[in-house]
């Protein structure tokens, strides 16, 4: 699945042995942005990881689209909280180090 910028949806579906309708549903739920160029549908390479994850959630774990939407939202939230937590820990360690100097 290598592409410089855009991934053709048809290639993606063949590679993963999935129906195009699944990707179309992801688009309806706002989980992937599809671009159509000369009647061929594409999504950007930056979305590839996420779309592959949605495929796994649906086909391996039988999670429906409503579930995938909720999971995507919560994972995104979790990622932000983890990043914030890291930033705060780094700030805290600065003060802890200073306290240790005295």
């Amino acid at each position, binding site marked *: 699945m290598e592409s410089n910028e855009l991934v053709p949806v048809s290639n993606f579906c063949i590679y993963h042995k999935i129906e195009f309708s699944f990707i179309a549903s992801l688009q309806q739920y706002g989980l992937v942005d599809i671009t159509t160029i000369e009647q061929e549908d594409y999504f950007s390479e930056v979305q590839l990881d996420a779309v592959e994850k949605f495929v*796994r*959630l649906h086909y*391996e774990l*039988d999670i429906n689209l409503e579930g995938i939407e909720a*999971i995507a939202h919560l994972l995104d939230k*979790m*990622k932000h909280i*983890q990043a914030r937590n*890291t930033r705060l820990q*780094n700030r805290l360690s600065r003060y802890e180090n200073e306290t240790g100097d005295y």
Partner: protein
Amino acid sequence: MAFIDYYEALGISKNASPDDIKKAYRKLARKHHPDLNPNDKEAHKKFQQINEANEVLSDPDKKKKYDQYGKDWQHADQFEQAKQQSGRSQHSYAGGQGGAGFEEDDFSSFFSSMFGDGGGRGRQAKYKGQDYNAELKLGLRDAYTTQQQTLTVNGKNVRITIPAGVENGQVIKLKGYGAPGVNGGPAGDLYITFIINTDAKMKRTGNDLFMDTEIDLYAAVLGGETTIETMSGKLKLKINPGTQNGTQVRLKSKGFPVYKKEGQFGDLYVIFTVKLPVNLTEQQKELFNQLAALNK
């Protein structure tokens, strides 16, 4: 790796029906799936185990052998042959608890012997390989510039570029550098967590840097100049007359580079620490006394 009791892994009894096995697997897979537990090593390990358990218990032929020989399943055919040759038939093995005896691996050797050669009947689900996690330690000064580093992960050399400004605890993902997939599934990913060591002179908060610099009493009172060592080189700094101890001076864009934003930097905060003179000579004492008298 220690023997895995597949029934225990799925939380089912030995009498569980194929439907029970499927249900138990689905329930646990949803709980421990790597996509739902990013950066959670325990969940990944658990997922591999339940995956392995499902692959065995959902196949009637493998299940039968597992039930009969337990941890010695891989030698089932040899046992059968021996039984036929010796005429003994009582020697059976209960599945379940058991000791080690398998090779050190993330999977039990059961799994590799059964699925490593692509054997087995029926449809086998493809699964993404296990994700690997690694830590990379860098000094604060290393993180200031973009670095090229080569890591060895499971015998494979991985060359990575670490952009300047990477933060302590930040994780980057290298797609496809994890364990190979199961049954032709995609390889897992490699997650690298950066550990940025603290620096004796500089403290970092986000993209801003903080440093203490000592100035003598005379420069603090009368004003003057001092030279400081920033990350990008030496810098002359003006000291205003009457500078108090703890005064903070902000040097715009002299801090840490902003991650993946070329040419953008945080600020550098220089905190002045006024060093009081000690071991005064008689003459100095006299002059300080005069100053003190003037302030009365």
